[in-house]
């Protein structure tokens, strides 16, 4: 559970880089405070089967929940 400490290690850095790559360079910022993750992404494409939505800026706020995580985007 005490993973925070390892964020600064080689592994942690690699994971962070993977996160950046996964979002394919769109990740502007990431923040974690009070158990709340905040991501800001730029130039994002939301693709569903029928629809395609392109957006300049997406802010994702994610909380860690025991039962479910709640996500909101604006």
């Amino acid at each position, binding site marked *: 559970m005490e993973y925070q400490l390892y964020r600064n290690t080689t592994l942690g850095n690699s994971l962070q*880089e993977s996160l950046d790559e996964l979002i394919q360079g769109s990740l502007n910022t990431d923040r974690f*405070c009070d158990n709340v993750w905040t991501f800001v992404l730029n130039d994002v494409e939301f693709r569903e089967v029928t629809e395609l939505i392109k957006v300049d800026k997406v802010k994702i706020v994610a909380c860690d929940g025991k039962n479910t995580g709640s996500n909101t985007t604006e």
Partner: protein
Amino acid sequence: MEEDAYLELYLDRCAAQDDLAPAMSHLFSPVVPYDVYLSNQSSPETVFNSHLSGIKELSNDFSSVDLSFLPDELTQGNKDQNVTRNQHEIEEKYKTQNQQSKLASPGKQDTELGSNGSSLSNSHSHLYPDGADSEDSSPEKTNSDTLSLSSIASMTPMNPVSECSGIVPQLQNIVSTVNLACKLDLKKIALQAKNAEYNPKRFAAVIMRIREPRTTALIFSSGKMVCTGAKSEEQSRLAARKYARVVQKLGFPARFLDFKIQNMVGSCDVKFPIRLEGLVLTHRQFSSYEPELFPGLIYRMVKPRIVLLIFVSGKVVLTGAKERSEIYEAFENIYPILKGFKKA
């Protein structure tokens, strides 16, 4: 350039273990600005601090206290690039010098490296006439040194080619610390800074990242900071300054005290497989090899005090260095030993 200084100083030390006073040892520390230390024999940190506190006395305005004494980021970035370029040049030259390992007449473009390369090749023989005295007087860098060194080099015999490895270890990671000298509100930093993590339940520091140079910093509420992930001394310093600037822009009176490189990690490849079992038998007092625990042999070199991880494949990791030269020196020390344990 500073990067010039590293290699040259390492070579000087090899060359002049007995006779030459390490007049330029203070140049070793990667503390900037370079020119401040040329005329000052005291430790870089104290010079740096006195310089810094001198400026602080002049101005009450915190924002001008900040990093204004340091070149602005643009210049620093350029300087860093130049330094990196020079660093590469130096590494290449170091490599070619190693391969030649002859007393080529110092009629090269870069006479410093020419003569120093020759003196490196003689480092093991310790045969230096007392003509090196002229170096003691001058705290200034190179010109007088190169002339005296070139005369020394022409007088001393050369070492056989096999003693020089021709391989330069590449730095992979630098860990450094710096004191921002003010109490910090970590929550505020985590909420306002761009790429920051803060989970006080798990770890009592803000973990911040920047993209260029790609590094991670641990920032503590005491104002102390650890910066990891840089590939060179200058990059580590630049990154630490960038973090300090971020903190400062958030409204804290951050300073930049006691920047110190705590650890440097390098790696390289000897390009042949190694008999680790043989090595641990003959170098029992330095080695520990437990293949069931870890596939690499852990070699704890005494001088310089460096730990090497040596693998069957021929790859070598060197760590525990405070200075670049220690990595180079450790590898030059281990290379002939490893050659003796080449497989098949």
